[in-house]
């Protein structure tokens, strides 16, 4: 999945906690853009992020961030940002005071920290509320402060751990827009961890799928959905006749609700469907291409991993 110089690189990374294997020989690279790291609870997402942030030592293998060994270089942490999943905000200070402080802790001089804090709060949509104590903010506003503190020192790379957790649909949409803006307008690359596949699908350029501590899939989001393109056909009657006509032409159709689906991105399939419809005399009600959501892909991969584990 590497298309440019890797910002993050993980090679044969293994992390064990006693007998529990959190990550098992995982290798991937992440380049410029928005990358989603997808997996269920316990898949190893947080462990991978903590190793990349230099907070955990891997049992074996290596993790490099911006060309430096993550577990050895403290300085590199000044060039990355981290938005944690759980609450991590003081209640009695204002957003302005907090972001200024966090910019200083990231190494910025005090005068620049104040400017950056004001700029960042404007970009995350909290400029008007910046002098209010954070304790009085809504969940959505707190998520924005958490994103703001991750961006305030203008990192080259930012880790976002479940950034939409606890948000209502409107707040979630706004957060996803901000994440897209973070890369497209601010030029900051993003590693976005989530178990919400719809969020990853809508926001990310690439995905990494972890399951049981193992890398299951990695690649461009578009490639995944394109590979799994299907054609949905619905007829008023004689569905069986149409399926038989399609089978005669070497096309396997699968019953799907009131219609059927045909797999394959090949455009010649449409000619075969036309011919089969004529032959079977089945009245066509609807025919449309449909991309399989990442949800289905993930379910398929989970089954594969479970089968592999059972074997």
């Amino acid at each position, binding site marked *: 999945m590497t298309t440019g110089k890797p910002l993050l690189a993980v090679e044969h990374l293994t992390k064990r906690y006693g007998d529990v294997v959190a990550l098992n020989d995982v290798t991937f690279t992440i380049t410029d853009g928005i990358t989603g790291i997808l997996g269920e609870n316990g898949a190893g997402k947080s462990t991978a992020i*903590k190793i990349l*942030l230099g*907070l*955990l030592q891997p049992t074996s293998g290596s993790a490099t961030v911006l060309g430096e060994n993550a577990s050895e270089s*403290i*300085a590199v*942490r*000044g*060039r*990355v940002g*981290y938005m*944690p999943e*759980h*609450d*991590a*905000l*003081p*209640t*009695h*200070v*204002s957003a302005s*005071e907090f972001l200024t*402080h*966090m910019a*200083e*802790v*990231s*190494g*910025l*001089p005090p005068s*620049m920290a104040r400017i*950056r804090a004001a*700029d960042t709060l404007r*970009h995350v949509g909290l400029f008007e509320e910046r002098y209010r*104590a954070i304790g009085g903010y809504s969940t959505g506003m707190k998520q924005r402060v958490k994103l703001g*503190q991750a961006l305030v*020192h*203008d990192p080259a790379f930012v880790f976002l751990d479940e950034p939409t957790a606890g948000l209502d649909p409107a707040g979630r949409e706004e957060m996803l827009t901000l994440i897209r803006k973070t890369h497209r*307008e*601010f*030029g900051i690359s993003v590693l976005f961890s989530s178990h919400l596949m719809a969020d990853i699908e809508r926001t990310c350029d690439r995905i990494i799928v972890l399951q049981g501590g193992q890398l299951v899939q990695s690649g461009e989001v578009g490639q995944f959905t394109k590979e799994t393109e299907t054609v949905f056909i619905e007829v008023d009657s004689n569905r069986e006749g149409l399926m038989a006509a399609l089978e005669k032409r070497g096309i396997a159709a699968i019953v799907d609700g009131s219609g059927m689906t045909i797999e394959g991105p090949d455009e010649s399939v449409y000619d075969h469907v036309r011919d089969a419809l004529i032959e079977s005399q089945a009245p066509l009600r609807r025919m449309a291409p449909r991309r399989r959501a990442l949800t289905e892909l993930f379910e398929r991969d989970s089954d594969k991993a479970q089968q592999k584990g059972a074997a």
Partner: protein
Amino acid sequence: MSAKLSSSGTVFDIGYRSYTGAREGRGRARRAVFKDGVRAALGFGRGGRAKILPWFFITALSALGLIFAIVAGAAERLGGPGAAEQMNLPSHSDFYGIASIIMFVFAAVVAPELLCPDRRNGVINLYLVRPLTGSDYIASRWAAFFVVMLGAAWLPQMILFLGLSGGDPIPMEYLEKHWLDVPRFLAAGTAMAAYTTTIAMLTSSFTTRRAYASVFLVGLFVIMAPFTIGLALEIGGTAGQWISMFTLTSIPVHVNDVIFGEVSEITDMAPARELGPTMLVSWFFAWTFVAGAVLWWRYRRLAP
């Protein structure tokens, strides 16, 4: 010359500006945590309620120094030169003994503010992913509260010194005679601040709730003293002297006594003073360094 003012303006969105300035790394991070610690201890950047307790204690300590100075000055004016000394009025050597209880309660109430909320709110997780280690964090927080305690310890002694020298009929003569009190109270104040800071910070590192830490510290500092002193006096002998050594509020006051070369009123009846200056000073260092080492160890291994 006339200028035509426009009645309308245009707001330009300058968009996102990347930061190209200096990145000062770990040193700046340490200084920022230190600065924030001082501000948190004094309630700066927080609401009005956060300022009440620290400034109440600082005012109380300063007022105590001022009262000592006024009383001594009045005695000198009314009784003539040297009257304050003859009346054995409390002075620099007695100050920390008398004020120690206020300083301990101050530490018990304010020190948890520097550590507990960061762990309770999870802000510590944001510190540890920046160019800052757990050791850097705790050293900076310790230094911040130490500086605040140092200010709280030195300020009333300075007020007292200025009051006593200004109140003396011949101020220059007072300065010539008592100048050595200045390095002595600075040293004794440093010992007092280092000890109270370390014990209060260590206790605060064991809980995420400020109230628990404060109540425990007040119990440790205030309630424990009558028990150990009473038990020590009851048992007597060497065992009594060693039990008396566990009066935690007296440990830095014994060092104050060693520095000034005289016993203050609060340690006068403590059997521990019979163990001698070397043992008393070593005991102080043992408590301060062991507590400091445990504190550092707890944060050194901390990870989100």
